[in-house]
């Protein structure tokens, strides 16, 4: 499939190649107005949809963050910055922020490391490659919420499949105990949820890296081999540098997905015990139940972070397109 950069260029060229037909003088103004309005007609449906579903909520969000709304949903005037100061003085917030950083860094770091290996493996030729690649996409296609539920079930302290396995290995000594109750303790719950998040992230990052690997011309490896370079050397000096565009895009999109991830933590612990496994996203949702103003304030903070990620993404996208030219 042609990539967008090339596609855009091609479209540009077509445009430049065909000079606009000579315009009769008197058609003048009416025609020009029509010409100017024409794009509007084609783009209006998409633009309206974006305005209603994306732009409007952003405005509503910022508004709500400055309103005083009771738990039953009645707006009783402006709150000024009170929602924000309440949020920032929440004793749970520092822990939640630290946990969010840990969550994103750990999930993205582990995911990228594993998918570098997986991409290399699935880029080799071997019988049955097509089928194994299909197996790889299962967690991507399936609902994350259902995947999280099945992990919750497998970790169940009394008879979960993972606990049965760990019992056979001698790691878990007793069922229905504190040690087999992985999701009951904040630290082990976090570790398992990071594992599940890695599991559902791997297909996308691996596929992106696979697409990146395919853009590297095979002759380069041939040449390196002729020059006597070891496999590790040619991986470090050819594959890694040329894989960078794909790698960076995969990281940024993955960061966005993981930061916004809600179903995994929601289904496995609901953020508990207490607030001990909340990230900012889950905390925002938990606040929404009764303190919608404060929830909106949390969302505004989250959204500011997201804008930073978006800007990085746009930057990276630009680099990659320029590199593709």
């Amino acid at each position, binding site marked *: 499939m042609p990539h*967008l950069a090339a596609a855009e260029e091609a479209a540009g060229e077509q445009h430049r190649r065909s000079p606009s037909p000579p315009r009769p003088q008197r058609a003048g103004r009416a025609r020009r107005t029509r010409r100017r309005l024409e794009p509007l007609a084609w783009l209006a449906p998409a633009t309206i949809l974006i305005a209603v*579903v994306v732009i409007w909520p952003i405005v509503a969000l910022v508004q709500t963050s400055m309103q005083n709304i009771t738990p039953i949903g009645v707006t009783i005037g402006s709150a000024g910055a009170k929602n924000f100061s309440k949020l920032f003085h929440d004793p749970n917030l520092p822990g939640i922020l630290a946990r969010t950083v840990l969550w994103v860094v750990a999930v993205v770091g582990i995911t990228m490391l594993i998918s570098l290996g997986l991409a290399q493996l699935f880029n080799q030729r071997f019988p049955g490659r097509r089928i194994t690649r299909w197996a790889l996409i299962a967690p991507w296609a399936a609902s994350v919420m259902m995947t999280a539920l099945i992990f919750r079930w497998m970790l169940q302290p009394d008879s979960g499949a993972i606990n049965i396995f760990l019992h056979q290995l001698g790691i878990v000594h007793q069922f229905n105990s504190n040690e087999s109750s992985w999701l009951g303790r904040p630290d082990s719950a976090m570790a398992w949820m990071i594992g599940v998040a890695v599991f559902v992230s791997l297909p996308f990052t691996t596929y992106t890296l696979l697409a990146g690997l395919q853009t590297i011309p095979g002759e380069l490896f041939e040449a390196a081999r002729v020059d006597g370079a070891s496999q590790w050397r040619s991986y470090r000096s050819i594959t890694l540098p040329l894989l960078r565009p794909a790698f960076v895009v995969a990281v940024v999109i993955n960061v966005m997905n993981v930061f916004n991830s809600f179903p995994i933590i929601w289904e496995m612990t609901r953020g508990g015990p207490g607030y001990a496994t909340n990230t900012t996203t889950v905390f925002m949702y938990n606040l929404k139940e009764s303190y919608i103003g404060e929830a909106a304030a949390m*969302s505004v903070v989250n959204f500011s972070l997201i804008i930073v990620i978006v800007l990085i993404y746009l930057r990276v996208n630009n680099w990659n397109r320029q590199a593709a030219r």
Partner: protein
Amino acid sequence: MAAGTLLARRGTSPRRLPTIKTAIIAAAAYVIAIIFLLPYAEMLITALRPQRELLGRNYVPHHFAWSNLTNMWGSSFGITTSLRVSLEVAGGATVLVLLVAIPAAYYTARHHFRGRGLFLLVVLVTQILQPTALIVGIYKEFLNFHLIDTVWALIMVNAGFNMAFAVWILNAYFASIPVEIEEAAMVDGSSRFGTMFRVTFPLALPGVVTALIFTFIAAWNEFIAALTLTTSNDVTPLTVRLDSFIGQYTVDWQHLFGASVVATIPVLILFALIERRVVGGLTAGSIR
């Protein structure tokens, strides 16, 4: 290569070395593939566990209760209703996405005009935004419009956040179709719209199918917007319905996972069909 075949024909060993390597690679790939499928196998096995053996400490129950798969449709679980809602939401969102994305993708692929860059930039930004961060705003908006507990709200949200993918993938396809083909059709007396429907769309069909399947799956699996925007049982899609099972006194895990299996299998098959084209659309074409 040629030397390799020659040696092999002479019956010496150098050809066996790569074979062993291939075998190791293949074995590793098979093991990984199985690991990726295990949770979904467990989903299926649990769906077939008889009530008595639900908490059995074994990987596979002694008996399979195939009747679970028929019992779960009973009205008390609401799975039938939710499945219908999920179909309506995913189907509606898919139709809406195609309706708005096709004209936008076609026009931006064919014409250079003022504001084109801005439009594509906005689309690129919505691509990586997700409903999660905006959920409080989305909730307030639909509350104002009295659209809470309607499938329309879910259709719009899902369409809005998945439109970008469709625009990218279709834009790339339209741009790859030479204008000359369209011009030739128009010279032969076809109208502009006639040309679009008879010439351009059929050529861009793989792109349309990819956009269609991708949007359907994304809307089918969507969770947080549905959880926030629906309260009544008549309009909760399957993901929200399954969530409501959790926390009840007795959770019917076998039915919960039975419904999950039913929801997951078609999606796996559909996704396998478009697998190769998805990355290009998700990375806005900057890879591949």
